[in-house]
């Protein structure tokens, strides 16, 4: 569903005398339909950088990032911006660690707007169902999530990520702010998505969560700074 070929990424900090920080060097990664791969490695090794590269949020310096989109393979590393927009709309879902949304928009709308291929009523009903499943009580659905707790915001984010039923889902620490009961729900949702054929790439700091959802791990190791 998704694979990288010799993916490399470095950050060049022009405001710091052009210092260059290599993060990924010739990474070959792949994930198949119905499989969950956990990215593991020490903090700062580049797990999030890899995940963001897969989403096209960071720009690859070299190599390819191939995504199966509508039956064809598209290279995210070289695709035009509007192709990436289309791949994200149709194929590639992403749940970031923190919720970033327009102020004033109610939680339910945020989730419902992310639905794909549904009537508006169906989308809202599905969003309501997902939010309740994630223990967001109905009285919060009409409120904008800016004032919600970290855990509540994360669950809004998860509902928004899962409602789209994208064939590929990228998860950045989906259970980081959740208590055990809510983490358990997310584990079940990930298992259901896998059973439905979704390819999942995730970063899970909680070893228990990781062991239960991941079919295999992919090591991301820090590069030598001397590079």
């Amino acid at each position, binding site marked *: 569903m998704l694979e990288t070929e010799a993916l490399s990424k470095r950050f060049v900090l*022009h*405001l710091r005398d052009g210092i260059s920080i290599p993060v990924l060097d010739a990474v070959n990664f792949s994930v198949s339909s119905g499989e969950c791969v956990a990215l593991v490695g020490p903090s700062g090794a580049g797990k999030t950088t890899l995940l963001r590269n897969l989403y096209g*949020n960071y720009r690859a310096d070299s190599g390819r990032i191939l995504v199966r989109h509508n039956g064809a393979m598209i290279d995210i590393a070289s695709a035009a*911006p*509007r192709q990436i927009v289309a791949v994200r709309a149709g194929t590639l879902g992403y749940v970031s660690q923190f919720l970033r949304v327009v*102020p004033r928009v109610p939680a339910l709308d945020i989730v419902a707007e992310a639905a794909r291929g549904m009537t508006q009523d169906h989308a809202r009903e599905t969003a309501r169902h997902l939010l309740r499943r994630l223990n967001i009580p109905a009285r919060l659905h009409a409120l904008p999530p800016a004032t919600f707790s970290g855990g509540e915001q994360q669950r809004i984010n998860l509902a928004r990520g899962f409602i789209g039923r994208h064939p590929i889902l990228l998860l950045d620490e989906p259970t980081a702010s959740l208590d055990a009961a809510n983490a358990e729900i997310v584990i079940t949702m990930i298992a259901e998505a896998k059973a439905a054929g979704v390819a999942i790439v995730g970063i899970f700091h909680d070893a228990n969560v990781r062991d239960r959802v991941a079919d295999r791990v992919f090591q991301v190791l820090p590069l030598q700074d001397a590079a």
Partner: protein
Amino acid sequence: MIADDSLIAARNLSLHFGSIPALVDVSVDLWPGEVLAVVGESGSGKTTLLNVLSGRMRPDVGVVWYRDPAGSLADVHAMPAPALRALHRSDWGFVQQDPRGALRMAVTAGGNVGERLMAQGARHYGNIRAEAIDWLRQVEIDEARVDDLPRNFSGGMLQRLQIARTLVTHPRLVFMDEPTGGLDVSVQARLLDLIRSLVARLNLAAVLVTHDLSVARLLAHRIVVMQRGVAVETGLTDQVLDDPQHPYTQLLVSSVLQA
């Protein structure tokens, strides 16, 4: 080369004001349903770019192609003035920063919206009024205000009225110059939400000039970063803002306070 499905294709635009370069070899494409943000500091040339793209200002060098609904390309700056005016009245819309400059302050709110329809040839008073009221509702202005003069409206309401006046003719392409500039933050949020939902629902293409990177992030699919008339970086909005490549973009992004 011009893609065969682009709405606007501008090639190698240059424009000088005396010795000051306002645009230096800028090329821009826009596709139907796409929102393009033009960002940069004051004097970077972003409003000049908007004015040249929309035919309001003529470049020294370069061409702006526009594809009409029938699919044929027209050179915006070679069009006869009446044709360009007709385009601005129908297929295109323009939302400027100060709504007072776009609205007629001595005409009622409903009249301001209906006037655009009449300019397109609508004559049935009842229909025009009904459509004006419908648009006031869509921009969240109370129907009871339809016969009020805009001079009694708040800044946010005036901006929403300008948007209703612009969208009533169902343009495919809207040019917006700092539409949330000069408004209180709480009013800005409401307006942003409104613009975002209208653009998505009506599948509008838009060129949005803003100095506010968070506005660009919320509304735009793609972004162009301008510095001294040069388009120094362009790309997917979140990629340019989260992984800026050009020194100037890195400076812009790192200069924003995280709220």
